[in-house]
Each structure stands twice: as structure tokens, then as C-alpha cells.
């Protein structure tokens, strides 16, 4: 029952929150639930480290026919992602703590958190996929109902585009199980068994491509990314935090948990293509970010760039690259989550997100300027903050795999400075334009500062002391790289 509680708790409280008598009661219940989940997930660290072996805290239901068992387990990577999800859910609930949100808003976040936890815990492909698609529905309503501007179109585009990935992934997963049956004659949907035998056969490359494409849409990787800017631009602040902070990690986690272990030979063979696409994501994302006029679209493209580092780290198939990717997932969640919160606060105050809508905020809102600079620096990979460590390890992994690509990827750091600092200068330093909405922007309230400080502490902490997290993911990464 240990792990089931992790996803069942938010899933069960979601309807209660929805049916709560008053909005205030709903918010308080949601706050209680999400903090309980966070504390519970951190408490899990005890039993987790007590056990041995790669996958721990196993928990499975009755062995159904054909291996369709309800089976949960967790390793270093998924536990850290559970922490990230729980932490970001709590942060997004506290950050948007206001009265005009209806009960369904809080229920949607709890449902989203439950679905994400499910994805990171499930070891059975059927259940993995159920939670994978289930996560889309709350996010569809979060973007669609409480977003801004043309949220309906963005939500519709988001869910359809992600279903394209989802259905390709479903085809791939079923194909993987069929290939495994051809190879070993046994039917199983258990990820540990599936990844033990290497799938081969005439259909193997197509299945590999289908699964890779399915996950690539979610990551997103360069050509399949254009649902992200629209979804982020229209999502509410907390929605963007969860979308960028936790949902993008489903794709990367899928690659690490299913694709690479199931097809070690093909992953190695696909290195130039996959790493090439990763580098393309880094450079394309950064360049597009430089050209954006809307702050949220800019941060959305930076996410494409950062996720490119994860892809590069994974497909280098080196332990350093993989631990870099695992670390980058957590770091990106924190820094981009912070950025989206800040832009959300801006939008709350001035109902505008354009770079040219603001100016000279450093004088009128110094705390705003401090936190925005702090999180932006972490996002562009300033050493000493958390962004750098993940990127450096991923680059190192890529260097071991193919030096020219590593050189190209390292250009991403220059482009990062090129999109990070000018936007900061435009909004905070440059004098306000005639139609500027800066006067509307009053400085951060105590609650908002508290939320941002809780984000800033891990940002610096992981930047200077990433060792505990690296040790946590080391065994999982080691087994991945050995294949």
C-alpha cells in the first residue's frame, strides 16, 4: 500500500475538493492534500533507502492473465520525479491562492498530480499508458477553462497534438509486447521483464520509432514541439508551472524507463539521429526564444531548449549523460516553474505578457527583479545554480558519444544568454514605454515571496550540492548505461 497511496491520495481528494461547500474550503482541502502528498513522498525516502536493488518498494495486485498486473515500483529517477511533481503541485496551489478560482480548478490540479504520480510509479505498460493519457484530461480543462486569450483553441490543439503522440506510443507499446512475445514466447506487460529480453525482428525499428515518436511529442523534441508555445501562452500561471515543470518530464522519463532499456542496440544505432535532434532542439528552441515578443512564449521555447539537453544526455548512453538528463529534468522543473510563476504574477497584476508592455520594473518592484534575475540565471545555466550541473553532465555525456555534436550543443549556452538577459533588461532595466503597464505592477506580496524562496533554496542547493540527488539516480543510470 506504500506507493498506491502516493497517487490514490490526490485522486481521491479531487472529487471531495470539487464537491467542497465553499471555495475557501476547497482551497484549504487542496492545500492539505498536496502538502500531505509532498510530506508522504519525502517520508518514502526512508523505506526506499532501506531496501536494496534497482526497483524498490514493489507493490502488485493479483497477477492477471497475460501479465496485465497492477504493479508499482520506484527507483531513483522516478522517486525524484515524484518529489518534483509533489513539490510543484504544492507550489502552484499556494502561488495562485486567490478567491476567484472555482472548486474544479483545485480538483483539476490534484487529479493532474495523481495522474503524473501514476505515470512515474507504474511498472506495467497498460497502467502506465492509462495514467499517461489520463494526465491530459485535467490539463485540457486547466488550459481550456482558466487560461487566457484564445485558451479554447490552445487547449484543443494541445490535447489533439498530444493524442497523436499518445496513439503512436500505444501502437509502439503493443508492438513491443508482440515483439517480446515473438522473441520469448511469453506474454507480459511488465516493464522489468520487457526490458530484460532485447526485442528484435523485422518490425523492431518501426516499433522503436513509434515509441520514440510517442515520447518525443511529449518531451517535446524539435520538430514535434509546436503544441508547447500555444499551450503555455494560454495556460494559467499554475497550469504552466505544472505543464513545464512536471508534464514534460513524462516524455523524458518514458525514454529512460522504456525505450532505451528495451532497445539498447537500436538506441545506440539511433545515436546520431536522436542526439542530432536533441541538439537541434537546443539551438532551435534558443533561437526561437530570442525572437519572441511574449514572455510566456519565450519561456516555452526555452523549455524546448532545455529538454534538448535531456535528450542529448539520454542518447549519449553514458552514465554521466544519463545522470545529467535526470538532474536536468529536476532543475528545469524548478527554474522554469519559477519563471512561469513570476510571469503569472505579472499577468495577474497587469493582464499583459508582452516584453514591450513593461519597463523599468527594477525601480518599482525590486523583489520582482531580484527573483526574475535569479531564476533566469539558473535557467540560462549560470554555474553555481542548478541549471549548470545538468547541462554540463549532459554535454559531457554527449562529448563522449560524439564531440562535434557536443560542440554544437555547447553553443546553446551562448544562445541562452542571448535570450535570457535581453528579455530581463527589457522588462526590468529599460525605461517604461508610453503604453507601459509597469505602474500596475506592485512588488511581490509576502506569500509570493515565500513561494519563490522555497523555489530559490533548491535552485541554489542543487547547484552547489547535487551529490545526494546524483547518488539517488546513480544505480538506475548505471544499469541503463551498461546495456
Amino acid at each position, binding site marked *: 500500500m506504500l506507493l498506491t497511496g502516493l497517487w490514490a491520495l490526490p485522486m481521491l481528494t479531487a472529487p471531495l475538493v470539487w464537491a467542497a461547500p465553499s471555495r475557501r474550503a476547497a482551497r484549504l482541502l487542496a492545500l492539505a492534500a498536496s502538502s500531505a502528498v509532498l510530506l508522504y513522498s519525502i517520508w518514502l525516502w526512508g523505506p526506499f533507502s532501506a531496501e536494496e536493488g534497482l526497483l524498490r518498494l514493489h507493490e502488485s495486485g493479483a497477477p492477471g492473465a497475460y501479465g496485465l498486473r497492477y504493479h508499482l515500483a520506484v527507483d531513483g529517477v522516478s522517486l525524484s520525479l515524484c518529489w518534483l511533481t509533489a513539490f510543484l503541485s504544492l507550489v502552484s496551489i499556494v502561488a495562485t491562492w486567490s478567491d476567484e478560482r472555482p472548486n474544479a480548478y483545485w480538483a483539476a490540479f490534484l487529479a493532474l498530480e495523481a495522474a503524473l504520480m501514476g505515470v512515474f510509479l507504474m511498472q506495467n505498460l497498460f497502467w502506465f499508458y492509462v495514467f499517461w493519457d489520463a494526465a491530459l484530461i485535467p490539463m485540457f480543462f486547466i488550459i481550456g477553462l482558466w487560461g487566457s486569450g484564445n485558451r479554447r483553441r490552445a487547449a484543443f490543439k494541445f490535447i489533439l497534438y498530444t493524442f497523436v503522440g499518445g496513439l503512436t506510443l500505444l501502437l509502439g507499446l503493443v508492438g513491443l509486447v508482440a515483439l517480446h512475445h515473438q522473441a520469448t514466447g511469453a506474454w507480459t506487460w511488465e516493464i522489468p521483464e520487457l526490458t530484460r529480453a532485447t526485442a528484435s525482428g523485422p518490425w523492431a525499428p518501426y516499433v522503436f520509432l513509434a515509441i520514440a515518436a510517442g515520447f518525443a511529442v511529449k518531451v517535446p523534441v524539435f520538430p514535434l514541439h509546436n503544441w508547447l508555445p500555444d499551450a503555455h501562452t494560454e495556460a494559467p500561471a499554475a497550469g504552466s508551472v505544472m505543464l513545464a515543470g512536471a508534464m514534460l518530464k513524462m516524455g523524458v522519463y518514458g525514454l529512460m524507463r522504456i525505450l532505451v532499456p528495451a532497445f539498447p542496440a537500436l538506441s545506440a544505432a539511433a545515436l546520431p539521429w536522436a542526439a542530432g535532434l536533441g541538439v537541434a532542439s537546443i539551438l532551435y528552441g534558443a533561437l526561437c526564444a530570442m525572437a519572441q515578443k511574449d514572455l510566456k512564449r519565450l519561456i516555452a521555447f526555452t523549455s524546448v531548449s532545455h529538454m534538448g539537453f535531456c535528450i542529448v544526455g539520454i542518447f549519449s548512453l553514458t552514465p*554521466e549523460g544519463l545522470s545529467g538528463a535526470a538532474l536536468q529534468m529536476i532543475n528545469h522543473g524548478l527554474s522554469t516553474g519559477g519563471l512561469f510563476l513570476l510571469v503569472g504574477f505579472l499577468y495577474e497584476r497587469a493582464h499583459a505578457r508582452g516584453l514591450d508592455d513593461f519597463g*523599468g520594473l527594477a525601480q518599482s518592484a525590486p523583489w520582482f527583479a531580484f527573483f526574475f534575475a535569479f531564476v533566469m540565471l539558473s535557467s540560462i545555466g549560470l554555474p553555481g545554480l542548478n541549471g549548470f550541473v545538468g547541462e554540463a553532465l549532459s*554535454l*559531457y555525456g554527449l562529448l563522449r558519444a560524439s564531440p562535434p555534436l557536443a*560542440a554544437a550543443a555547447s553553443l546553446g549556452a551562448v544562445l541562452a544568454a542571448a535570450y535570457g*538577459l535581453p528579455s530581463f533588461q527589457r522588462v526590468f532595466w529599460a525605461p517604461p514605454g508610453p503604453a507601459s503597464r509597469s505602474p500596475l505592477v506592485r512588488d511581490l506580496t509576502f506569500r509570493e515571496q515565500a513561494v519563490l524562496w522555497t523555489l530559490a533554496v533548491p535552485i541554489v542547493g542543487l547547484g552547489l550540492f547535487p551529490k545526494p540527488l546524483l547518488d539517488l539516480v546513480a544505480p538506475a543510470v548505471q544499469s541503463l548505461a551498461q546495456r
Partner: protein
Amino acid sequence: MSPLPAAALVLLAAPLAALAFGFFVTHRVRPRTTHLPILASCAAVAAASLALLGGALGGASWSGRLFTWISAAGVQVHFGLLLDPLSVSVLSMVAVVGFLIHIYAVGYMRHDAAFSRFFLYFHLFFFAMVGLLTSDNYLQLYLFWEGVGLASFLLIGFWQHKPTARAAAWKAFLTNRVGDVGFLLAILLLFRWTGTVAFADLFSNPSLLSSQKAFIVGFLLFWGACAKSAQFPLYVWLPDAMEGPTPVSALMHAATMVTAGVFLLARSYPLLERAPGLLPFIALVGAFTAVWGAVGAFFRKDIKRILAYSTVSHLGLMTLGRGGGGVFPAVFHLIVHGFFKAALFLCAGNVIHGLHDSLGGAPTATVDDAGGLRASMPMTFAAFTLGAVSLAGVPPFGGFWSKEFVLAGAFGTPALAALGLLTALGSSLYIGRMLFLTFLGRRSWQKGHAAHAHEAPPVMWVPVLLLSLGGALAGFLAAPLARLLGVEPHHASHTVTALSIASMAAGFGLAWAAADLAPGGEPAWRSRHPALLEAVESDFGWQPFCDRAAGAVAGAARFLGDIVEGSIWDPGTEDAAAAFPALSEVLGRRARGILNDYALLMTAGAAGLAILVSLCF
């Protein structure tokens, strides 16, 4: 390598404590007093570094590891401090010069509204610089390297309302990032080939790296150093960095930050030694930059830009020294240069401060605005002269000795010697011109501001004087520094000394001629050669080239962001999805709903099945 003494910990702890206290307490409660904890921490760091210097002179050196930073499978990096003669010597110069400039800044920034914010940024730089000098591995050095870059971004852009300051700050950070990419790649390659980046492991058995690999890593390190120490290709940000307040220009863009690159090259001397062709190349780039800077300095009018180009030139000299003569000439010139260049910059600060009211609050002044300030600003004049003669290399002042060792090293190859002497001539030329125009001469085109310029308050001219004295007397540091670094100083032959003195004298003569021969000498000459002037103003097209390159990248970004993403790829996928409803519309209109058609289709279907069966029966 004895374990870390308490003084070593003070080096980092004091600035951190001051910053934390300043940021969380004084900046909030009483912003006018933020400089007090910071000055205290400067004093502590200066005392600690001098104590360490004493110990180091006695032959001691310390190193120790504080905690493990990154430990992925192949990448093991620790956070540690290394205090060997090289780092202690440079650290002492930085601490002393930094302390004096902090005091100067109290006076200079007194009237600025963001007084406390300035000191927080200023001390953040100081902390990063101390960290950089004392780190015991490349990755930690890289961390403080970028920290220094960040501080320079914040300080150059300190006067946020000025568009030129903002552009300069961004340009500085971007150019530094271009260099840092090379530095990062060097670090990653080191991990790749040797599995470690700690100086102790790397330099204890140099055979780890083959010469070819050492060349690649060395070159990349040099590329990083070029950005930070404003060597030829990547120096473009330094002249613009003068947009920042003068203490910033003095401390960072003259004495300490820009020397980080030279320190990096000095720190990795065993690595560079293993790469055969690298050192001469570095020397050549250094020499070329030296001449390039000198030419730039001579033609500028803005007093801070003249000093900026002079810094570029002297950094070139240090690199030349490093390439030609080894560690000692470079470090010695670095230290001496730190003193007199800081003094010169602070004198310029005094001049600007003095002329502040009459220039209508402009942050900088040109040699034309100044002129004949000898009477009204005696102390600044004295300090400036001391600094100038030391820079030009007039014996027996500090600059002469350090330049001697650099030229001695350079005389191995004729090209370097020629460039070295040219630089010697150039430096005396431009510093002479600046001295005569600013302090001595009285020309008609002067705007007559000299009359009511007033001397800076003691809190400003005392540190300036001390610095210029330090610069002048630095010559006597040669012997102890050599003993500290454990290297036999290679004195220049008498011919070399004679040649350098001759060129220095020639420089001064020419400066006197150019500056004061004819009352309208300079403006007349400028009007006659507009093309030449324009070429020099834009560094022979190199500055516009860099701006165009940056523009090209921004253009590519706009192209990708607006055209490819905005109007081709994004709408493309949406149109692909919209194809289905369109097809549905076409099909829908054709289905008319007539019963006979239904029956016809059904019969066709059944007939098709029947035919199929009979065909392949």
C-alpha cells in the same frame, strides 16, 4: 601542501557574510550603511591575503578540499581551495587594490541613489574574484569565472536607464559567454581524456595529456582567456564596458577581472608547456593585441576609453610575457599593471568627478573637456603623473622593470621584439598625449572647464595616491616575487633596455609634438584625415564586424522564430489537421440521400464480394 589555515577560510567566508548581512539587513533597513560591512570584509580579506603572502614567502603553500561538488560516474569534482605562491601573489594585489578602490568608491558613489545596491554588486565581484584565484580545479574556477562575468554585467549596466550602458552590459556578458563556451569545452575534454580537472592531479603527472590533446585543451583555455582578458578577437566588449561607474572600470576592467585570463594561462603553465606550438602563438596574439590596443588608445578622445585601450594593450603585453618569457614576467607585469592602471583610472574618476557639474552630469569626459587641470587638481595630477611614467616604462618606476622582463622574454623572436618595442613607444605616446592634454596644455578649443574644476575629497585622492605610489615602487617587488614563484628572473640584456628606453623617450617626444606643437594641432589633423580617423574609431572594422555578426544571429533567430515557426511549421501542422474536416465537407455534400443510390451502392458492394469470391476461388 599543508592543510588550509584559518586565513584561507576568511578569504571566502568574510565576503559571503558581508554580502548576506548587506543584502538581508542593511540593504533593507538602512541602505546608506551597506558599505560598512563590506569595507570590513575587504579589510579582512586584505589582511588574510597579506598574512598568507608572508607565509608563502616562507615557502609554505596550502590546499584543502571543502566538499564534493559533482559525483556522476566518470565526473568527480570537489570544491576546494589552493593557495600556492602564484595565487597568493595575485590575490594580495587584488585584495590591496580592491580594498583601496572600495574606499574610493565610497566617495565616488556617495550621491548615487542606488548606493547600497552598487556596493552589493561590487562586493559580489570581489567575492567571485577571490574565489577564482583560490579555486583548486578548473570547474570551480569556471564557476567563479562566470560569477565574475555576471558581476561585470550587473555593474556595467548599473545605470540602468542609460541604453548604452544596457547594451554594453549585454555585449560584455555575451562576448564573455562566447569565450566561456571554449573554456567549458576544455574542461569537458579534460574530463574526457584525463578523468580529472583538479590542478594537483593534472599537473603532478603531465604525461596524462599527449601533446596534440594538450594543444587542443590549451587553445580552448586560451580562447576563454581571450574573452576575459580582452585579447584580440574578443576584446570588443572592454571599451564599451567603460559605461559603468569609474570604480568599476578601475577595479574590474583594469586591475583584477581582466587579468583573470592571464591568471588562467599562468595557472595552467604545465598544460601549455606540453603543447609545442601553442606558447609562441599566444605570444604573437599578445603582441598583436598590445600594438592594436596602443593604436586604439592614441586616437581616442574619451579619457576612460583611452585607458581601456591601454588596458587591452598591457594585457597583450602580459600575454606576450606569458607566451615568450614564462610565468614570472606575466605575473609581475600583472601585479604592477594592477597598481598603476587602477591609479590612472581613479585619476580619471577624479577628473570626471571634478568636472561633473560643468559637464552637466555626463558620466565621462573627453580630453578636450579636460585640460590645464594641473592647478586645480594638484593631488590627482601628481598621482596621474606617477601612474603615467610607470605605465610608459620610465626607469626606475615599476612599469619599466616589468616591461623589461616581458621584452627580455620577447626578444627571442624578431617579430615579437619589434611588436614589443612598438608597444613601448605606443604606450608612452598615448599616455604622454593624455597627460599633456588633460593636465598641462591650455588650448583654444578647450571649453574652459578647467577654471572651476575642483579637487576630489581626501577619501578619493588618498587611495589614488597610494595606488600610484604602489605602481611606482612595484619594481622592488621583482626579487621577492621571483623567489616566491621559485624562478630565476631572466634579466634583459643592456641592448634591450637601451632600445626600450629610447622608444619610450621617442614616444614622449612625439606625444609632446602631436599634442602641443600647433595650437590647433590635433583638431586640424583630425579634419584632414577623416577616412583614417573613421577606420581607427571602428578598430579597422572589427567592432562593426562583431556587431554585424551578433545582428546576423539575431536575424537568424527572428527568421526561425517568426518565419519558420510562426508562419510555416506551426500553421502547417494546423492546416494538415484541418484537411480532415475539409475532406469531410467535400464527401458530405456528395451524399445526397437518395434511396436508389443507397441500393445501388449496396448491390455494387455485394456484387464486388461475389466477384472477389469467384475470382480467387
